């Protein structure tokens, strides 16, 4: 099968599904489809057979740019010591309400 067959392989799409109104679309997996319309149909049949969603996004996998795990330290660690960004960092006397 090899090369000629590989050329025929349908590209990969990543699928995102909104489970209910008000929620974000969430990544649920991937699938193969020849075009975007087919990808939506396949996503519907593959990922929403049990009412798992009310809206679908599909994105060609190769168009997603991801961060590099090797850079995780420099990307995400610097946020760790900035605890003053969180409301629990501040101690407010009990008497002060609605703050």
């Amino acid at each position: 099968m090899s090369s000629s067959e590989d050329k025929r392989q349908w590209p990969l799409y990543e699928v995102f599904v909104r489970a209910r109104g008000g929620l974000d679309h969430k990544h649920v997996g991937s699938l193969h489809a020849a075009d975007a319309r087919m990808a939506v149909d396949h996503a519907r049949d593959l990922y929403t057979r049990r009412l798992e969603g009310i809206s679908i996004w599909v994105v060609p996998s190769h168009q997603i740019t991801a961060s590099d795990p090797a850079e995780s330290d420099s990307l995400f660690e610097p946020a760790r010591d900035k605890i003053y960004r969180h409301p629990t960092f501040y101690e407010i006397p009990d008497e002060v309400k609605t703050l």
Partner: protein
Amino acid sequence: MYTQALDVQGADAATLDEGVLERRFLERVDAEEKIEPKDWMPARYRNTLIRQISQHAHSEIVGMLPEGNWITRAPTLKRKAILIAKVQDEGGHGAYLYSAAETLGVSRDQLIDQLLSGKAKYSSIFNYPTPTWADVGAIGWLVDGAAIMNQIPLCRCSYGPYARAMVRVCREESFHQRQGYDLMMHLAQGTPAQKRMAQEALNRWWWPALMMFGPSDANSTHSGESQRWKIKRFSNDELRQKFVDFTVPQARFLDLAIPDPLLRWDDIKQQHEFGPIDWSEFDQVLKGNGPCNAERIAARRNAHAAGGWVREAASAYAEKQRRRAATLAA
């Protein structure tokens, strides 16, 4: 994110010493952290996963055949709908699992190629025939039951995409086991002919179902490392024992006899003792000499070959559309 097709930004793990990377990897596994597609992983871990996940995917796809066989003959419209939905789920499970395998750097085409060329294995259980309607029930009850037993621990497997696919699979799989038992129950409580059909199916599937857990621990080649890597969490024999202990009372409720004269309850061990498994049969089926090996693979090959022009046409149409859009934009 998930796939080999994703744009990988110059990860430069190569500069680090393999030993250091492996130690870090094992620390993460020990800490029950999930390994994700772009994380560094030992080549053996990657290969083990590719083999296991793709075998699992192939099993789902080939597994559509023995039951799919009965879709057109299902005895009621309700049973027909249930069976279509079930076989469809198996296709879905195959798709989830191929997706998970693809995150490890193989394409689905490569995997399908391995299946069709006979290079890749799939679960031997699907090389057994489904001569009667009761076999559909027996597969749901016993084969899916054994599969769930194997698969629930995989939801906690160290490799993220596999674990997530398995969560989805297991959620759907419990419907399969229940519908199988329900089907058997209707037969067991039906006419004498129906009950006989159920008993014969149990006779056919009992031992092959026990073999699904794989060789006994003493003879299992892949177990040690897989357990270290938290791909596998229980041994074959542990899971097999659990399956027997769960299933025997279920059979008793149906008033069907487990086809094992040595089966008995061991009061001291608080578990069932059961007779020896005929591993020579297992080996035969594994080597391709089971009752339906050739037919199953032929069916997959035919479907793939007959669909070639369809897949090609869809690609050609997509390409035309792209060109048309480009022309319009220009």
